């Protein structure tokens, strides 16, 4: 069957983006960003804590490292759960020893089911990012706008009941529907990390005005480098350092930069992976001009630019 002639019609072919979520902005035309104390690179380390319900039915698309084996998939369930029992505490200890300001993106269901973990996170002074209900609740257009609004409301409510006060959002699997940015803004959230399209924060527009996108380079995450691509922790650590040096060099010439690093407790928290990651982070922390910052502080700094 031939294609309809509408296939050769391009309704959004014009200046800027092909949607109204945010505006096009060329890298070369950005204003210079200055970090507190003249720092060059803001280092943001985000630990992700996730709950994969054992009875997950087919999701709209597969989540990286999700449950894919027949019920009951103890293999993947327990591999991921390892992160919430063992891996995260190993990472928390490492990050605290290095003096790194940390955020934790956490599924609401996990916050509810593990009060010990949540209290520990709060006691350590970490910033909690709402990470949806759980890894079975992916945000797509298959869910109605009202249902999605309710998912977001419940996620925030559950996290608050557990003692956190999230101002930011990361969807499970970075999934968003056409309504998500608007619903996040409506829920009073200040930032989201689902759009991996920039190395610097930028504002959403239109119905999502007020919401800011923070950089989330998922290819420099442990899920991709080690979980999916089977690179070694040494190779992962090299990439972190290479990324840092590149950003640091740019910041010297151009503008403050953000190095956003995502660690999943079930992957980076494996014993044999800790040392290379620790060494890379330690080298960055010892470097001059590094500002270890939680996402809320980065957002605050961006908002207070002259």
């Amino acid at each position, binding site marked *: *069957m*031939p*294609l309809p*002639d*509408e*296939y*050769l019609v*391009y309704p*959004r*072919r*014009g*200046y*800027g*983006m*092909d*949607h109204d979520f945010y505006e*096009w902005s*060329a*890298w*070369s*035309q950005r204003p210079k960003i200055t970090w507190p104390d003249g720092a060059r690179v803001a280092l943001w380390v985000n630990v992700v804590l996730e709950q994969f319900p054992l009875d997950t039915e087919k999701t*709209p*698309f597969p989540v990286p490292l999700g449950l894919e084996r027949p019920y009951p998939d103890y293999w993947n369930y327990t591999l991921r759960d390892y992160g919430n029992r063992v891996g995260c505490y190993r990472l928390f200890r490492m990050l605290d020893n290095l003096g790194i300001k940390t955020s934790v993106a956490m599924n609401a269901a996990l916050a509810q089911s593990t009060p010990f973990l949540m209290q520990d996170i709060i006691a350590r002074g970490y910033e909690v990012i709402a990470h949806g209900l759980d890894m079975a609740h992916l945000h*797509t*257009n298959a869910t109605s706008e009202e249902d999605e609004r309710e998912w977001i409301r419940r996620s925030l409510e559950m996290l608050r009941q557990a003692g956190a006060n999230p101002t930011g959002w990361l969807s499970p*699997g*970075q*999934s*968003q*529907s*056409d309504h*998500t940015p608007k619903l996040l803004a409506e829920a009073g959230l200040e930032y989201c990390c*689902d*759009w*991996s*399209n*920039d*190395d*610097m924060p930028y504002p959403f527009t239109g119905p999502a005005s007020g919401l800011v996108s923070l950089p989330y*380079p*998922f*290819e*420099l995450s442990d899920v991709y*480098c080690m979980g*999916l*691509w*089977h*690179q070694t922790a040494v*190779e992962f650590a*090299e*990439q*972190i350092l*290479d*990324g*840092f*040096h*590149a*950003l640091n060099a*740019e910041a010297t010439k151009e503008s403050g*930069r953000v190095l956003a690093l995502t660690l999943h407790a079930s992957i980076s928290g494996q014993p044999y992976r800790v040392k290379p990651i620790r060494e890379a982070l330690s080298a960055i922390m010892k470097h001059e001009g590094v500002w270890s910052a939680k996402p809320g502080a980065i957002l605050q700094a961006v908002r207070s630019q002259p």
Partner: protein
Amino acid sequence: MKRSEPGLYDYLPLTSRPAIRWPNGARVAFWVAPNIEFYELHPPPNMSKNAWVRPNPDVLNYSWRDYGNRAGVWRMIDAMKELGIRGSVSLNVAVCDHHPEIIRRCVELDWELFSHGIYNTRFVLNMSIEQEQIFIRDVIDTIYQASGQKVDGWLSPSVSNNPWTMDLLAENGVTYTCDLFHDDQPMPVRTETGRLCSIPYSLEMNDVIAYTRAMKTPREYGRMIKAQFDQLYAEGEESGMVMCVPLHPYLIGQPHRLEPLLEALDYIKSHDKVWLTTGREIAHWYRDHYYDDAVAHAKMLRTSHAPAG
């Protein structure tokens, strides 16, 4: 036309073909082909190929591609300028409309713009010949209006073709295709009219393949590029070779990936018998000096090695 074979080129074995001499005795014609692309958030469906892996809107994948235009491409262009390497841009021409700033920068630096279709989310699969003709004219006109350049090269979006595509390209004055991966040297492509060549583009050296399929680290990718070059440089003493590094700013423009590539490019540049060039210049050189010889040689081989009886 047999469906079992492309029928686009003759068998010309590496050890029996006219030797190529590049300008100034270069052994390798080296070109870098950044793919500057625009993927739509809500593309229309094409029954043969999904534009996105996840259901629309595929925010993860869309934003990843968008990264190339917002951040990666600027970093890549500056670095290539610094090295003195021109790009031959495989362009989704809708970028001329959406992001003219990028096009202006490429034109300023005397980079070649060639066709990578209109959007990377629109494929020629299932188009009629008439529709594909409209599609091709759109591309040619858009690049001309944005840059004054004539379209010489063609890389189909997602390397998707129809059996008549090469004929249409030749008829529209395109001089080279990047969709054929059968050789390390340019080759004539059999078309009804015109003189179309294939120019080696390479999937092996392509950052998309290296990173997202072969799952290599940036440093490993750099080593692969150097190894590819070393072999071709040695062989190029006998007959000039072509090496292409196809890039995607959404991948290579990330901070942790750029340096190993630049180091490899610098290594290549440090050799004296390298022709740092563009797809267009290679295609024109080949067409003007070797196209006819290659066709004649293939014909001779067919005749002299015809099966008995």
